[in-house]
């Protein structure tokens, strides 16, 4: 199959087109078509991983179609060692996400259409080798989120307080429309920054092509690099939850419906981190070295600050959202180390966190659907009625706190090791402390929700995992353990590309 990458990207989009042709009443049909689209992409991703030639490394399965020849824009698809795990991640999350969305009742067809369009964009980003198309897919992935949260989301109240409480009179902070708007606006401001950087690079490279390979071969002037790098870092970084542009995440993830949270925290935030590494650090190596202290320090703030904020939350979804902010800090820290170990860890963490947070949100969705509350203080003893949910939730917690044997450990350990090897060895220490704080807040939540005496009357008859709900816990839980016990499934790929890309970074003497 020579067009495997096109198929992976197109399958969800085609499925979305087919959905548009189906009548609204074909509820099962809508779901089956969506699932098929997702499954084709997942199968394709597995095939890509299976057939990737590890001895050769580099870009493989190159496909090139001219799109706007006068400007040098090509639809150029190819996969490298970083692309493989991220394709797998996206495939796994969308399949489990569709399964977790089975019970969506409101305007379900529209919902699935948007979900599939979004994921087509994500697949596109991970295989694009043309900066313009990369950006195009990035926008396709980001925008449907506005509608998905604004229409299918859930609102909650945030009482007016603090020095800026007067803004509450202009908009209802905490509403789903508010959350959707905030998320979209913050990410669009980021996109604007990326756009500027993109044209800056395009122009300096001769204004003839957006081909990443050509851009990599271009030696950009130091000034250009120093200006473009922060634009790329903060532009993509806002999607990766880089402090202080992370505040869309708690509200956005808390308001979003289950599968949207899974996709957003599980995959979309990785687009941001991937962008910083693939565009910022690889294309602008000198600036990467110069800016690394800033990137790394902010990442450390992300880890500790995110974890401590998470520890103070009372709403379950907010805890998971803040934990994403903290864990994405680990990715950015790995990137900032500019060591192979750290980069391997960063990409591994993208995968591990994606799976782990996907599992978290899927389970939170199950609990919320039954208990109709996300306030942990109201819960208790749920393990009596939903032992399966409790078991998988515990597993997600363990990966989150970096327990050996789960994917989270491999990722965090590599990142910390990379930090210790890098120019700023002290970064490892706040990283390790962050992992401890994580242990505190996840296990406390786990204890409060699931342990204790059998639940009160109102929660006494909550059902355990049923039918399609099994999909997410089983697949994601297995992945967490499998890739935690035998990391080489992914590390063999990742290391090839990290080593190749890192060769471009000038060594700091």
């Amino acid at each position: 199959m020579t067009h495997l990458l096109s198929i992976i990207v197109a399958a969800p989009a085609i499925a979305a087109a087919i959905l548009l042709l189906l009548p609204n009443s074909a509820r099962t049909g809508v779901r089956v078509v969506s699932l098929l689209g997702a499954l084709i992409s997942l199968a394709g991703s597995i095939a890509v991983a299976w057939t990737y030639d590890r001895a050769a490394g580099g870009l493989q399965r190159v496909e090139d179609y001219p799109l706007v020849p006068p400007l040098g824009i090509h639809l150029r698809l190819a996969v490298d060692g970083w692309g493989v795990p991220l394709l797998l991640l996206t495939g796994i999350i969308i399949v489990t996400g569709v399964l977790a969305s089975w019970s969506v009742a409101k305007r379900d067809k529209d919902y699935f259409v948007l979900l599939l369009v979004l994921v087509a964009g994500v697949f596109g980003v991970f295989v694009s080798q043309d900066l313009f198309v990369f950006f195009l897919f990035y926008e396709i992935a980001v925008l449907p989120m506005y509608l998905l949260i604004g229409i299918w989301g859930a609102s909650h109240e945030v009482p007016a307080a603090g020095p800026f409480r007067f803004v509450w009179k202009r908009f209802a902070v905490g509403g789903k429309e508010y959350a959707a708007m905030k998320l979209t606006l913050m990410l669009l401001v980021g996109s604007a920054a990326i756009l500027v950087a993109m044209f800056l690079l395009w122009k300096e490279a001769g204004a003839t092509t957006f081909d990443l390979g050509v851009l990599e071969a271009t030696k950009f002037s130091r000034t250009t690099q120093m200006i473009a790098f922060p634009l790329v870092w903060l532009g993509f970084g806002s999607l990766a939850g880089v402090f202080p542009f992370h505040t869309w995440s708690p509200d956005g993830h808390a308001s979003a419906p289950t599968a949207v949270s899974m996709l957003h925290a599980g995959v979309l935030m990785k687009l941001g981190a991937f962008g910083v590494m693939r565009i910022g650090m690889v294309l602008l190596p000198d600036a990467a070295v110069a800016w690394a202290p800033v990137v790394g320090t902010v990442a450390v703030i992300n880890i500790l600050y995110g974890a401590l904020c998470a520890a103070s939350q009372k709403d379950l979804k907010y805890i998971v959202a803040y934990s994403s902010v903290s864990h994405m800090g680990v990715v950015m820290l790995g990137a900032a180390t500019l060591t192979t170990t750290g980069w391997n860890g960063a990409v591994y963490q993208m995968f591990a966190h994606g799976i782990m947070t996907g599992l978290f949100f899927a389970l939170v969705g199950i609990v919320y659907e039954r208990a109709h509350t996300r306030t942990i203080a109201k819960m208790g003893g749920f393990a009596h009625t939903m032992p399966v949910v409790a078991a998988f939730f515990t597993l997600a917690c363990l990966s989150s706190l970096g327990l050996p044997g789960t994917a989270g450990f491999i990722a965090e350990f590599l990142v910390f090791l990379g930090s210790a090897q890098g120019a700023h060895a002290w970064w490892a220490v706040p990283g390790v402390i962050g992992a401890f704080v994580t242990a505190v807040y996840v296990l406390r939540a786990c204890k409060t929700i699931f342990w204790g005496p059998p639940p009160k009357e109102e929660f006494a008859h909550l059902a355990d995992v049923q039918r399609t709900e099994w999909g997410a816990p089983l697949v994601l839980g297995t992945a967490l353990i499998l890739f935690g016990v035998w990391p080489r499934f992914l590390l063999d790929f990742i290391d090839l590309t990290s080593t190749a890309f890192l060769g471009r970074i000038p060594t700091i003497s």
Partner: protein
Amino acid sequence: MSDPALLATIALVAPAAAALLLALVPPLRHRGAPAAFVCIAGTLVSFGAAIGLLVGRAPGAEEVRVVVPWLQAGGRTIAEVGVLVDGISSVMLAVVTLVALCVQVFSVGYMHDETRRGYGRYFAYHALFLFSMNLLVVAPNLLQFFAGWELVGLASYLLIGFYFAKPSAARAAVKAFWMTKLADMGFLVALLVLFVTTGSFEWTAVPTTAVATAVTLLLFLGVMGKSAQFPLHVWLPDAMEGPTPVSALLHAATMVAAGVFLVVRAHPLFELAPTTGDVMLWVGAVTAAFAACLALVQTDIKKVLAYSTCSQLGYMVAALGAGSAFAGFFHLGTHAFFKALLFLAAGSVIHAVHSNDLADMGGLRRKIPLTAATFGIGALSLAGVPGLAGFFSKDLVLTQVEGRAGWIPWALLMASAFLTAFYMGRVFIKAFLGAPSAKAEHAHEPGLAMTGPLVLLAVPSVIAGLFGGTLAHFVGAEYHTHFGLTPILASAMALGGLAMAGLVFGRGREVALMRTLRSLDSGSVVDRSWEFLYRRVMLGVSGVLGWFDRYVIDGLMNLTGYATLESGSAVRTLQTGRVRDYALAVVVGAILLSLFGVLR
């Protein structure tokens, strides 16, 4: 089947397979009894392999190391996993699997009243624990050891929280995990430092003295958590919320001793760092004495044993600090047998009277004579009565610390030896002698599943001390029994302590010291300090940051949106839609322009 690497792998894989089977095939777990069968079968295979290793191994033989690459960076392998078989790991493997086997068989009887699902879950956790423990014992490098170390922590968390419906058990489980995780930050940083300076995680890595000191101090922080050394010991007494057999296996015989095993394993590293040795000597001695004092005033039979475990771990740590890995390892081995025996016997008592409280016992020697006898053997061995296992190893520890740091640690340990005999005498008298309490009236001896392991463990609790020489020869250390001040004094302490206990408690009296200690225990300064650090400091900071993020950082984002909207509204008022306003603007504009033209 004599390939050591293969046998070690079998010992590792058998419990892992049992755990996986129980996790993946819910019917096995849900039906209870089959789960026990699968778990014990795995343990039996593991035990067989361990015995095979021990028997097939010539003393002083070369170590066998088989590894596969696990992590890589820059095309280079940075970490491996596999098995390392040498004298120390084969002995440890045999001890661990033997105690685990006894405890699991005992559990078949002890946990009989559980629901079927609970029963299944219990044995699934046990299989996970044994796999993790074996993973750590045969670890060829520090990284795999760390993986096993954290996983036994997980098993401990799950087993302490086994009765998760009980809030106290839930709290104890989480507390144990947090305290050990807190200490494990040291372990993790030690791994990083070791790798960055020596380029590997090997046991044989040789860093400079400064690095070795840093690494060993950090590692010792991890040891203090796992082996419950002062002031990180607070989780261990609470861990008694778990089922009693769990306390016997994890929180007495094996898991808590993993810290001691780590130091024995990493001995080449610790030898490079004399400073760490001094720290360990002091921490160990203080823990031994402190915990022995608290053991004296506990009213819960399991808590006495828990503090006693803390105290004995202090002995081991002190021995390691004095530079004698062998003394620590020897005491680890004998302690594993007699403490597991004591806990299981205590379990049998609890099973008989349905209470942990010493006040509910008394006079049990007639009702459950076998339990009383085996508990007595364990108590005498722990007290260090000459001739029994505990005497030899404790004597060796005391000999090793002779003259160290101005004899103070030695004196502390000697005093603890007296206290040990004294508090064990107290427990034995309160539980088994005197008049029976109301609850003790209907006590009866348990079935064979429970008495069998008691008898089995009583044997090594008596004779294990005689094998000191063999053990030393096997792991390549020196050991001679000798005669001198320390053994005489230690024997006097043991016998004196027991006699004193008979005099005091046999007549239902108390010593004044105990009242002081009791008030100290109820105040539990250490526990409260941790509580303060957690609630006030950590959660306090987290609360402030949470508010700050919500209302200041996010407030600024909201402010940006607000400012945009407000300025939009302000500018919008210019566009009124009324022709006369626009006409006015045109006229004013024209006048201004012409004025500008004229004046220029």
